[in-house]
């Protein structure tokens, strides 16, 4: 399973001649960073990295805010038509993005948001918050009613109830959602491909897909590009390992 990752790492440090002379399996002779540097510059990696971080952070935060608000109404408020809404959100989440993309593309051009990171952030946040609503509603439904009533007796208004009681109590679930939303949006491909056409607002995944043609056939450049795509994920994996394991079954719906 890890073999392909080991191979691309090994071959990213080789020079082209070294690869063609000894093949993919020979261990690299020296820690030669030229290939990686070349790909970094070819791809404008620093810009793509910034874009990916900006988009993923914004999506994770915005999607959580929307989910919190809707789930608060459904799970705590138990407003009318609750089960209809929850069913609707769940179905919305499994829709293929392709069925929404053309009208959204047209709409984004009309309102001048086409080719902006904001368009991608809004669309993906709303898509994810359908899942977030479903997930948080079921957690909120399980909260003790006495606690909520007690808060109301103390004169808590709805906003205070949400931010002083519900949010602190559901921090573990919120952090799981944050990590998953962040990684999902980092890996998102279709929506960014359609909406981000200029070099300076594209994400890493798009730059990866675009770069393959430009680098031509040199295999060391390709493996270096793949390695640059994998590294951030390894970092997230190490950073978020605990939360990922806790919420692993959560990924089941995506």
């Amino acid at each position, binding site marked *: 399973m890890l073999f392909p990752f080991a191979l691309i790492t090994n071959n990213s440090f080789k020079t082209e001649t070294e690869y063609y002379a000894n093949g993919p399996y020979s261990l690299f002779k020296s820690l030669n960073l030229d290939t990686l540097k070349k790909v970094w510059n070819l791809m404008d990696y620093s810009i793509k990295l910034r874009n990916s971080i900006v988009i993923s952070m914004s999506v994770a935060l915005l999607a959580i805010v929307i989910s919190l608000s809707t789930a608060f109404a459904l799970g705590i*408020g138990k407003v009318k038509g609750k089960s209809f809404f929850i069913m609707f959100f769940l179905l*919305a989440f499994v*829709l*293929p993005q392709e*069925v*929404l993309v*053309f009208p959204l593309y047209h709409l984004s051009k009309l309102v001048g948001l086409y080719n902006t990171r904001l368009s991608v952030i809004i669309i993906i946040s709303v898509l994810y918050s359908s899942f977030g609503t479903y997930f948080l509603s079921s957690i909120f439904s399980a909260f003790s009613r006495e606690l909520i009533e007690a808060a109301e007796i103390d004169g808590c208004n709805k906003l205070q109830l949400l931010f002083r009681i519900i949010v602190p109590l559901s921090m573990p679930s919120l952090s799981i959602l944050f990590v998953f939303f962040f990684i999902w949006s980092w890996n998102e491909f279709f929506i960014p491909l359609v909406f981000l056409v200029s070099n300076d607002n594209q994400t890493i995944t798009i730059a990866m897909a675009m770069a393959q043609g430009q680098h031509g056939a040199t295999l060391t450049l*390709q493996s270096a590009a*793949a390695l640059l795509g994998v590294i951030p994920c390894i970092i997230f994996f190490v950073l978020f390992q605990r939360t990922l394991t806790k919420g692993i079954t959560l990924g089941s719906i995506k």
Partner: protein
Amino acid sequence: MTHKDYSHNTKIATLKASSSLNKGYMVFLIPGVLLFLLIIVFPLLANIGLSFTKWSGVGTPVWVGFTNYMKAIRDSYFLTSFKNALLLVITVTTIPTLIGLLLAGFIFEYILDKFGRGIAIFFRVGFYLPQIVPIVVVGIVWRWMLQPNWGVLNWSLKAVGLDTLTRSWLGDTSTALPSIMMMMIWFQIGYPLVIFIAALQRIDPVVYDAADLDGASRLQRYFYITIPLIRPEIFVVVLTTIIYTLKTFAQVYVTTKGGPGRATIVPSYFSYQNFFIRSRVGYGATITTVLTIIIGLVAIGFIRMQIKQEQEG
């Protein structure tokens, strides 16, 4: 008035207040619902509407009724795209799920006992790692390994003298789709594995006592007792993988772009071509509408089973 009475009265008062206050929550539903209408409901309906039109993306769409649908059922690209999706669904769902079941049992029953927790976690992490890598990057890694001239696979075949087997794996009609399947299977294994290991952990060891008394082997125990017990998880894995695989796009985009010919065309990529490359928006909308109906049916089946399970549990 005693203290007790006082608190009792307040409780009644608050109960009344809270039931009337329940309406105050509606406000919190408004932003979400508006955004959903704008980003999901309206585009979905517009897309369905567009599937009944002929439109290049500029000017006014022309209503053509069911023409696109009639065209689709005779279009060999359309039919091949769904046939390929079906082949992917079958292989990418069954193979990783079966491997996941075997591996989960192996890691949980054998590795954990013989080598301890650390090694068991290492295995789980190793298999799960591809899951958090963008599928685009996975595609690039595999394309690199399958490269015709100097790629890892052909290099290895040559090294062991199997030169005749070398080929352009992604460029050959007969091997392009199986190559994508292999890549997706490799990517997918970690998902059932992790879900199944979590499922095994929730099983109370007491259920094994009777089997142990009857002298059942560990293997028998796993197949006859454990697997039936984790059926809900198997069900979740199978249905979510079906939905996921029906949406295959990036995997094809970075490796073959649907080619050679129509060997690896899938509905998502075919619709993308119609929307953004060939400017046949109406036809693209038709393909996505059909795909959505299929996914919707699978999802509704999934939700109904979930509800049934919850009621039984």
